[in-house]
């Protein structure tokens, strides 16, 4: 059994990172040139890391499956990015940001990592501003902030509802600068399909060229995964439809532990599903809860148009249940509260699976212009999709799969359980515990990529300076390539009748029903059976037209769906194992009389890191005990 060593420095919380940096081994400039690093992913984490490593002088190879790095899913982030600048003088600090995240994550995150994320958050904002990212400004010319859920300060920097786009384009620009200098070589339209390990160390990847279909080999002294999250497991989610967990899953099967796979964030404010053809759900940013008020009618099944329902007949249930935080409770709390009202028959719209998000009061007090300035593009997007003008009528919203707190287990240095393999951004599990607070993912992804990984990977590479450039002719590469080809050919040869997407859709539905917003033992056991059956059907009735060596989008999808089945299975195992409720993981068996999540700190104050032991063999559980030295573990309340 591998011993989980999280390598947390011994120093006091505020000194851990400073001391780590001061004592980390360095690689001199002449040696950096001789070291190759593969970075898979071009979101804020991946492109941030690639450009920072290029600036340092390493040889970087950067990969993404989109046609250009600028389209990585980070581009879709809307609401904002946090930093502990305290520009509003409202009592913010690094410690408070750290504390909010630990509490927001329901005491299931590692203190040292979270504190460091909060620490580098300010550097991230400085860097983006220097790169020309146009964050919103006030009339004094200074940067403006707004609030996100689960906190009582304004620490969120934003660029209208396009913060992710602006941060990513800034990062893309710095990546381009390194490409122009020859420090980073960019490989778009490549899908990583396997990791190559030599003598226990990550030394390369196998990709499929999505244009020619060719299976390619790339080597390096270290490999960094920045491949994003797996919220698409539900088929319908707020993620870009091609986002997928395959890269993470492949390395998991090669020895990287997967941590807390069942911790998935269901975002409370998405446009509800409108019909059965839908390929995705569109998020309405959490920032809207700064000014929008959430309500349902007090009367069950009240079908009157919302504007005809008088004030006293409305139930602003978040304000009622959580007076201290009101509409700004964290996402898990807001999502479950919406589900509770809808399940009890108070939901609105044709399906009854929606609640109102109303801007009437905000428009009255601040004027339409102010609201337009803050959320203009979101309002437009809502109207484009639903045909309803939210300046006049409340938005209808419902929870949707959004973000995965679970991911590859990493230590303090962001290294997985495979030597020389790192995981950063949403692909790792590290900073958000059982629930992520809004605007903290862009912050973490950027912090990991720009400010943390470049130090920690240096410490590892300092011992690699005598390792010559790695040949892709080695037998390990040959074997990995062969395995990839065989698997793809096997998928094509099934030659059944059903499309990859139709399987994905069915899998997504059962995962949503049984391993979504709430879970219970009976349902989880049932869905485990269903996944198994569906997986068998997939492997006997899948249809992929076309061939391996050409553009073949169905083959791409099928490979991912095959992995979704295996990951879904592990999510269920993890959800069954954790009989407590915490954050977004709500086990119906474990709740307070008021219906809030009830933790079991005695038995579950740990990270569940799962080891793959072989095809059809049970996963092995490893526990990383969570020690809370710097915060007092309390009941998490927002009342």
């Amino acid at each position, binding site marked *: 059994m591998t011993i989980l060593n999280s390598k947390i420095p011994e120093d006091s919380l505020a000194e851990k990172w400073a001391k780590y940096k001061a004592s980390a081994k360095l690689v001199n400039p002449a040696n950096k040139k001789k070291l190759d690093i593969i970075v898979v992913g071009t979101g804020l984490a991946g492109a941030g890391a690639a450009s920072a490593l290029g600036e340092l002088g390493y040889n970087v190879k950067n990969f993404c499956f989109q046609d250009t790095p600028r389209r990585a899913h980070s581009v879709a982030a809307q609401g904002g990015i946090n930093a502990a600048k305290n520009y509003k003088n409202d009592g913010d600090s690094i410690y408070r940001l750290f504390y909010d995240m630990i509490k927001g994550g329901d005491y299931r995150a590692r203190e040292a990592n979270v504190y460091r994320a909060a620490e580098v958050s300010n550097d991230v904002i400085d*860097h983006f501003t220097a790169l020309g990212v146009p964050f919103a400004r006030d009339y004094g010319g200074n940067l403006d902030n707004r609030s996100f859920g689960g906190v009582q300060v304004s620490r969120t920097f934003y660029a209208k509802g396009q913060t992710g786009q602006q941060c990513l384009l800034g990062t893309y620009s710095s990546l381009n600068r390194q490409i122009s200098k020859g420090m980073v070589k960019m490989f778009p339209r490549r899908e990583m399909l396997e990791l190559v390990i030599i003598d226990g160390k990550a030394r390369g990847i196998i990709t499929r060229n999505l244009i020619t279909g060719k299976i390619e080999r790339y080597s390096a002294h270290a490999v960094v995964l920045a491949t994003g999250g797996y919220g698409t497991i539900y088929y319908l989610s707020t993620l870009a439809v091609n986002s997928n967990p395959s890269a993470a899953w492949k390395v998991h099967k090669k020895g990287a532990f997967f941590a807390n796979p069942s911790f998935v964030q269901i975002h409370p404010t998405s446009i509800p599903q409108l019909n059965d*053809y839908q390929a995705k759900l569109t998020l309405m940013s959490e920032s809207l809860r700064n000014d929008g008020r959430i309500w349902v009618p007090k009367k069950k099944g009240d079908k009157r148009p919302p504007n005809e329902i008088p004030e006293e007949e409305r139930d602003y249930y978040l304000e009622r249940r959580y007076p201290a935080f009101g509409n700004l409770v964290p996402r898990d709390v807001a999502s479950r509260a919406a589900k509770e009202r809808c399940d009890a028959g108070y939901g609105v719209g044709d399906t009854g699976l929606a609640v109102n998000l109303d801007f009437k009061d905000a428009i009255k007090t601040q004027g339409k212009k102010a609201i337009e300035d803050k959320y203009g593009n979101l309002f437009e997007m809502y109207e484009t999709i639903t045909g309803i003008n939210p300046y006049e009528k409340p938005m209808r919203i419902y929870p949707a799969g959004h973000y995965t707190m679970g991911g590859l287990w990493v230590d303090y240095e962001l290294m997985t359980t495979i030597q020389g393999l790192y995981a950063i951004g949403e692909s790792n599990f590290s900073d958000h515990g059982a629930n992520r607070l809004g605007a903290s993912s862009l912050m973490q992804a950027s912090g990991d990529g720009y400010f943390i990984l470049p130090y920690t990977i240096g410490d590892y590479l300092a011992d690699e300076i005598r390792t010559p450039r790695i040949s892709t002719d080695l037998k390990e590469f040959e074997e990995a390539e062969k395995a990839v080809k065989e698997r793809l050919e096997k998928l094509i040869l099934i030659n059944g009748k059903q499309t990859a997407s139709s399987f994905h859709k069915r899998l997504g539905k059962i995962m949503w029903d049984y391993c979504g917003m709430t879970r219970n033992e009976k349902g989880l056991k049932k869905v485990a059976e269903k996944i198994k059956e569906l997986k068998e059907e997939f492997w006997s009735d899948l249809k992929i037209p076309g061939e391996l060596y050409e553009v073949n989008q169905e083959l791409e999808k099928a490979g991912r769906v095959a992995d979704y089945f295996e990951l879904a299975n592990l999510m269920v195992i993890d959800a069954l194992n954790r009989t407590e409720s915490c954050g977004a993981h709500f086990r119906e068996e474990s709740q307070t009389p008021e219906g809030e999540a009830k933790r079991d700190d005695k038995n579950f104050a740990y990270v569940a890191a799962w080891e793959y032991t072989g095809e059809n063999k049970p996963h092995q559980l490893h526990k990383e005990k969570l020690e809370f030295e710097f915060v007092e573990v309390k009941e998490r309340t927002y009342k």
Partner: protein
Amino acid sequence: MNIKLKIWRQKNAESKGAFVKYDFDGVSPEMSFLEMLDALNKKLIEEGDEPVAFDHDCREGICGTCGMYINGRPHGSVQGITTCHLSMRKFKNRATIYVEPWRAKPFPVIKDLIVDRSAFDKIMTAGGFISTNVGSAPDAHAIPVVKEKADIAFDSTICIGCGACVAACKNASAMLFLSAKVSQYALLPQGRVEAKERVQAMVLKMDELGFGNCTNTGACEAECPKNISLSNIARMNREFYKAKIT
């Protein structure tokens, strides 16, 4: 509803393409244009045919991956939206819809509706950045930016790089795309330092890649799903001439 689709099918970059007709009954007005193509593809695959290849990802108008001519217009006839946001409500029952890939020399077809837009990346690599290293930035409040300027800069940064402007232009000019980036940096104090070199390098690269000249037709602005303004081109020209004479 029933839709008569005429879709450009082309096996790969080398082969010659042609329109293929599909009489498609399975369309609901609630579908988005891409969901309609998803449904068509499902049918094609189940019937043993090859699905139509097209690029897409976010499906919410922000990544810039999708894009095709719909009845001869980039992203279809609705102003200010991308193909993924186009609703089938906008078409009449039994309508005939022509669907084609971007037609522009710098964007060669890869397969069906997929084109190669890497020329855009090359323009950006030529100078679309501010040279600042990680860790060297001053405090974000060190340089205040007048709100009005910041707001105009913001309006030019929202380009999604979809290529509709090039596809709309009879000269296949990339001026709107390029000028949006040049404007962003020209308007912000952080970007002024390298303004001269930047605009020259980017324009040179654009010419080299075979994009045409701007003849002020304005089709790019009209078809831009993000309503990027032509005034960016004017600003870029000013920047360019200023760079040349100083």
